């Protein structure tokens, strides 16, 4: 048995496939590709196919890591090519490598956010991002109870740029990600809208990369 890390790009219509559906999609793709999976040896054998970090519904991605445990002696290149031959529209395998870092080492993710129908809001957005206080509500848990928590998204942000392209405003930003601290781009946008009191008509979000604490690629 060996573990490989598959990096998936998810573009176009495929972005409407949810996290759970992606897991099913990946399982089926592996089966179609004729890649021999390793199964757990318990009473109810099941394969090991795990996405490192869930991607919110409606967000595109340039590289979602999926760890798969394999049997047999297929090379990483063979795995990549066989999967690519059978992937649904919009999902492609960027690379297949041996897994180096642990999913727990994930600390950040970088996003590209395009806002449409928000003319003249670029300056306001820059100000909001710079002000250091971006309150937002987040569903969380207190023990076993579900509660709404007040958070400050500004504390979960890294470097960013805001560009006004006329037709759209483009925000490139690094947000906390992983099991410890996590901020989704949607929470950030809600928080910005809360501060500036205006909402763009339409937005397109792409996760560019998943990063370690030292900002190196996961």
């Amino acid at each position, binding site marked *: 048995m060996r573990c490989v890390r598959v990096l998936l790009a998810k573009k176009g219509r495929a972005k409407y496939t949810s996290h*759970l*559906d992606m897991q099913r*999609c990946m*399982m*089926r793709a592996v*089966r*179609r590709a004729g890649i021999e999976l390793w199964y757990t040896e318990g009473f109810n054998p099941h394969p090991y196919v795990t996405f490192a970090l869930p991607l919110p519904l409606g967000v595109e991605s340039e590289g979602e890591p999926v760890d798969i445990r394999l049997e047999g002696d297929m090379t990483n290149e063979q795995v990549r090519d066989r999967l690519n031959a059978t992937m*649904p529209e919009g999902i492609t395998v960027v690379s297949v490598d041996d897994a180096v870092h642990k999913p727990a080492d994930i600390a950040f993710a970088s996003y590209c956010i395009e806002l449409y129908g928000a003319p003249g809001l670029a300056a306001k957005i820059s100000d909001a991002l710079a002000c250091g206080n971006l309150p937002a509500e987040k569903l969380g848990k207190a023990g076993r109870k579900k509660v709404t928590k007040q958070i400050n998204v500004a504390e979960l942000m890294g470097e960013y740029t805001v560009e006004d392209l006329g037709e759209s405003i483009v925000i490139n930003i690094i947000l906390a990600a992983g099991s410890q601290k996590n901020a989704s781009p949607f929470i950030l946008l809600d928080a910005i809208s809360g501060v500036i009191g205006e909402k763009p008509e339409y937005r397109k979000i792409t996760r560019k990369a998943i990063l370690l604490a030292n900002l190196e690629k996961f």
Partner: protein
Amino acid sequence: MLSERVERILPLVQKPGRYTGGELNSVVKNASDVDIRYAFCFPDTYEVGMSHLGIKILYSLVNAREDAWCERVFAPWVDMEEQMRKNNILLYGLESGDPIRDFDLIGFTLQYEMSYSNVLNMLDLAGLPVRSKDRKDLTPVVIAGGPCVCNAEPMADFFDIMLPGEGEEVTNDLIDLLKEHKAKGSTKQEFLLEAAKIKGVYVPSLYDIEYNEDNTVKAIKPLGTAPEKVEKRIISDLDKVYFPEKFIVPSVEIIHDRAVAEIFRGCIRGCRFCQAGYIYRPIREKQADTVNRDCKNICDSTGYDEVSLCSLSTSDYTNLEELLNKLLDWTEKDKVNVALPSLRADNFSKELSQRLASVRRSGLTFAPEAGTQRMRDVINKNITEEEILSAARKAFDGGWTSVKLYFMLGLPTETDEDIVAVAQLAQKVVDEFYRNPNKPKGKSVSVSISVAPFVPKPFTPFQWEAQNSKEELLRKQQLVISSLTSRKISLTRHNTDMSFLEGVFARGDRRLSDVIETAWRKGCKLDGWEECLRLDDWMSSFEDCGISPEFYANRERALDEILPWDHLDYGVTKSHLVREYNKAHSNETTPHCREKCAGCGANKLNGGECDALRESAACKKGQS
């Protein structure tokens, strides 16, 4: 392809993956390369419609033609419909994103009566008039198929054509004809008159219905080229019929998310309440090799890890052992689970249960349908209490701990004693578990019983019966609840409002078209979803149209009354149904078709051939 306008509303709706298309194995063609564009519509949500085997077969069959392109269309959920209407987005085919208004054929499959209002809603969302007479152009031709077409008279005013029977051949015939008439520039009427000449094509507008003063049907008169009786189409040789090598793999989880292969059509049992058991006759089987090939193809092309065999009463398949041996040869290796729905309690063997359990274990479901032997004899569910209990024993022996039991309430001649016996039978199954020395250690048993109101259906021996009133059914449900004696038994009840409407439409006539349109205009849709069903609006619509729904649901018909579906011929003769009706009322059973042919008449559809006849002859020869 998704239009920019659709893209913009998708973030606003639940499960947007239902509206995007682009799934693996979906077929995209160049619109200018084809002569006929076909929108196959399932009048319910994506998750329900994508689970249906018929759509998968006909989709692939049409797309196998170079001159036609078939796309899928489902009913949008309430939130999506709201956004579509707000943004003037017309109902579109999932493959191209083009409005289906511009297609040549729009086909609906009518699987259950509660989907009727969705058909109107979908036509309206497509930007088309709902009534056939208001759609003046040749195209789109709006057609219907599926089991409800055996009496879709309440929908007669909305469809141009209905297709009773099996669709594989007649779909191609119809596409050929439409292609010819489109090229000729025919009018809609010219086309319909020609279509009516094809066997298995029913053009509702070519029949004139007269009514008696008591509201019963007086006469059904064919007009123009329409035949006196429309005979349903069947496929003679199931080993040669088209079956897809690929299924679309949905990107959103659907209800039956697995590979499916059909093993036979028809049923030998003759349960008197069961419409499917009568309208799909005569029985025709596929050979084990054909089914095995179908299963393997679908699993390979989809990557599904479960395959299910589809038919009525799976364990009546004569090649089941042979098929399972062939299947398990590769499914065990490929870690594919084999699911057998629709097993009968009487011939469910221990070996079978063990072989299936060797892959994965799920719950077991049996359908005794009624609590007492007398009641089961009336409905001709030829199964004894001992058989049910012994099947449960075998299941518990094999390690199962949960059993589902299906029952009906409101059957003809039913007494309170029959109803109390439902709870008693469930208790006996619980007792059987505790009596079993091999029961799984440390586990408790759970018996779930489901009681569904009986709805009399056309082309069954009970087509003349009165359906129980809502009040009576609610009383009977309460009686079952108060008779339950164990916490190991859980009960699921079916919505009685829904059963009432289902009963009205199942045996309704064309005058109900007005009611359906009225109710839909009041906002009725997705009636099969309990959270969407609005009975008050339906009841006021009946009143607005001056029509009594009880006349259709709760009235007992005379055996010589002209029924609204008498001009359709599903093979089984009326005299056979009368015979079975009389036997039911004297608690007499009829043996299944392989034991003794009951002379239902359906074999005439297949040139006198019937697999059950052949097998019973072979069986007798073997014995002598």
